[in-house]
């Protein structure tokens, strides 16, 4: 089987799916292939933060301005997966009190609405803040769900005619007359795709994709670890008012609070360690005293693909680059790298501009004009339906006739929602179902709902064991306090199924 498209996109993160949506909306024939599941790389392993740009205002003004502009666009087109919580920058008692004097004008220059407030007022709106904070600034940060953002891009791209495939790794790719031919898929399900242009949006794996065509990209992988706490410890994003550093952002994210990050040289697939968790919590204690006794349920590490020209880690700019590899002798290959989740749409627009030029076609970008998923403002009177509306947008209403028996209590996912997504051709394992519903992401870390997910998918103990193995990697670094009790309890329960959820297996 061989298909032919104008543009083949490799990588199903926010950027790749954003490009697929952008090009499809411009009328191009597009195929996107993702080796694993959508949002399974850096897209799904960050803070879930919609930057106002304030974090970079002092040190990286280009990124700051990009974030400010794109943040405002996303608040318009991705309402279904954004909670506009607002953000607060606070300076802890040991931070440099003068920093605010550089911060406020820098925000002004980048076009960010930043308003200094009284520290007493800050503690009224965020009661858990340390009594010793010295300054507080309100900014328009927000919380965004990157999984649903990427999935929203996928459905929007499909509605505009794109072919979008997950679990379809590129096995080989070669240049043929006037374009490229790629072999994609696993085992016996390989297929050939011919494309005029290939877009490399593989994130941390972009170097490997480029290497298949003999090109090298100066990419450095920066590891960032984050800790998930159960429940809302803060109502809005809380940032440290200091130059970007470790453990200085708390994001209220759906039913949790995410603390991050670290920054160190790493590689794709790196795991969070308990030492990193301890370091992050110790840092956050300066702003949110008592957080060390709060319940950490999980830790994870993301691989930031930073464009490294020598400077790496915190020093590297968070801006992005679209690389036309014609200069490397591979005309028709375009790579996009760097950037932030917040700027994914702009990255997609710039990349798509370059692709359209290669294709010799002209159509302007429309991604900022149309909502990714339709979102109806009118709230429903049912809790489960509301939870679904904030995951899937207006289309969630279609799920209302299905079973309302709870499927996952932590995340308020019904059996009906599970069964609906289990029947999607995109969903082949329990992890896929989790990313489409959030079932299993809550504080019991899939203690009970994994069984419901497996049964919705007609899968058994082996698949459950594999899924628990994946969950365990994130639980292991936070095995203390209440989560330790939780895991002991799970071990006891799961014995009945012959499952050892602490066994990673393969």
């Amino acid at each position, binding site marked *: 089987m061989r298909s032919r498209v104008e543009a083949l996109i490799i990588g199903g993160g926010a950027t790749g799916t954003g490009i697929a949506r952008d090009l499809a909306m411009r009328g191009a024939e597009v195929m996107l292939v993702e080796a694993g599941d959508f949002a399974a790389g850096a897209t799904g392993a960050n803070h879930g933060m919609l930057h106002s740009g304030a974090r970079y205002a002092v040190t990286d003004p280009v990124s700051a301005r990009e974030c400010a502009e794109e943040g405002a666009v996303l608040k318009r087109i991705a309402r279904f997966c954004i909670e506009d919580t607002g953000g607060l920058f606070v300076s802890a008692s040991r931070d440099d009190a003068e920093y605010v004097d550089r911060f406020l004008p820098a925000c002004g220059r980048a076009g960010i609405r930043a308003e200094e407030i009284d520290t007493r007022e800050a503690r009224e709106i965020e009661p858990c803040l340390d009594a010793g904070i010295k300054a507080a600034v309100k900014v328009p940060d927000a919380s965004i769900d990157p999984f649903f953002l990427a999935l929203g891009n996928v459905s929007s791209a499909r509605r505009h005619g794109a072919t979008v495939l997950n679990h379809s790794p590129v096995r080989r790719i070669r240049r043929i007359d006037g374009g490229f031919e790629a072999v994609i898929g696993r085992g016996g399900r390989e297929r050939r795709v011919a494309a005029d242009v290939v877009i490399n949006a593989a994130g941390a794996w972009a170097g490997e994709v480029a290497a298949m065509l003999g090109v090298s990209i100066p990419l450095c992988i920066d590891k960032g670890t984050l800790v998930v706490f159960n429940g809302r*410890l803060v*109502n809005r994003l809380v940032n440290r008012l200091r130059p970007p550093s470790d453990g200085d952002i708390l994001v209220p994210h759906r*039913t949790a609070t995410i603390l991050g990050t670290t920054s160190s040289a790493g590689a794709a697939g790196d795991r969070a360690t308990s030492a990193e968790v301890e370091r992050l919590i110790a840092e956050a204690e300066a702003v949110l005293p008592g957080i060390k006794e709060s319940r950490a349920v999980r830790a994870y590490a993301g691989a930031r693909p930073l464009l490294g020209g020598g400077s790496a880690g915190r020093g590297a700019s968070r801006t992005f680059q679209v690389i036309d590899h014609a200069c490397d002798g591979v005309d028709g290959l375009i790579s996009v790298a760097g950037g932030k989740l917040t700027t994914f749409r702009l990255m997609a627009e710039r990349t798509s501009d370059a692709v359209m030029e290669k294709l010799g076609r002209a159509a302007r970008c429309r991604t900022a004009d149309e909502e990714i998923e339709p979102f109806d403002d009118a*709230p429903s009177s049912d*809790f489960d339906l*509301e*939870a679904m509306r*904030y995951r899937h947008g207006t289309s969630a209403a279609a799920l209302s006739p299905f079973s*309302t028996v709870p499927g996952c209590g932590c995340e308020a996912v019904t059996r009906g929602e599970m069964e609906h997504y289990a029947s999607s051709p995109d969903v082949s394992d329990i992890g896929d179902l989790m990313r489409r519903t959030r079932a299993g992401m809550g504080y*019991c870390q899939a203690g009970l709902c994994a069984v419901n997910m497996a049964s919705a998918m007609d899968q058994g103990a082996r698949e459950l064991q594999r899924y628990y193995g994946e969950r365990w990697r994130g639980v292991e670094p936070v095995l203390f306090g209440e989560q330790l009790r939780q895991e002991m309890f799970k071990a006891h329960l799961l014995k009945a199924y012959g499952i050892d959820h602490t066994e990673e297996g393969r």
Partner: protein
Amino acid sequence: MLHPENRCIKCGACQSVCPVLRLEGRETFPGPRRLAVEVSRFSRENSTLSSPLEMCTSCAQCESACPSRLPLTDAVMLMRVRHGARSEGGDRMLRNSRQFGRTIAPVSSMRAPSEGSTLFFPGCVGEARTASSVQAAIDLLLSTGDRTYVPDGWSCCGSPLEKIGERREAERLRSINAPLLEAAEAVVTACPGCAVQLRRSNGVEALHVLEYLYESITPARLRLRSSRLLTVALHSPCHLLRTVGPHTIDYARELLASVPGLRVVDMDDEGCCGGGGGVASARPDLALRMARRRVDSAARAGAEVLLAPCPFCVVNLGRAGGVEVRELTSFLASLSESRS
């Protein structure tokens, strides 16, 4: 610790003991774990919860069952303040509180000394809804030679106002009561809710009248006797059992067992009467269904009288009809030889 309810490990014990969940079903009342723990972690979705939130009777059976001893009742009440609809009853309580210092407008004044050593705290419901019981309890204490008194100017303990989120008003009431309570040698009340609130907010060792009768007066000094053979059943009020103290209800049993001529029968169904947590005013239908279960159980056991050491239970159980319901202390008073 920030947000203690976040320590849940999902064992399900709380869900399995909740009387409202058992009676109404999950679709109508999703249970304590769902309301106190799971959905409290959500934000925008919680606007849909006002109906189930008003159905919690704050019986605290969930808390007793919880292996992590999570403050589930407080967590539900906090959710109610944040996301529940303010009921008419709540507004009325606040108005009354501001005007009279009581959540219910006082109807009559009690006959009691205004000075003494044992402060008897009538409580709003006690004074307004079960006035004769409160009077009987005071008379019983006085008849034993106790220097019982009710101070002028007492106000509501503040518990119902805290539960509807009116912390400032509750604080105002607390400070009115503070000097009165501090001046007393002992503080006694017939309302379990008042006893616990006075302990919590005023820091005084307020006793339920049963504790005082049993420990200080002692059963022997009460000289109780029933003039005829009488079969009674004893209801265990949730707030007496789980917040005042686990042994107080045993005192009640022993006091009753000491009365010649009295037969105490066990009921086949123990549990909440439905009268707490504001349910009787917000959801009278539910409160009545729960009360019926208790009263029917007493009738099946052959009881002529159902006794309850809590004014809320007395009022709510009394609505069901079928079996006579009496406040325990006033019942004991009616058996007192020194009185007759």
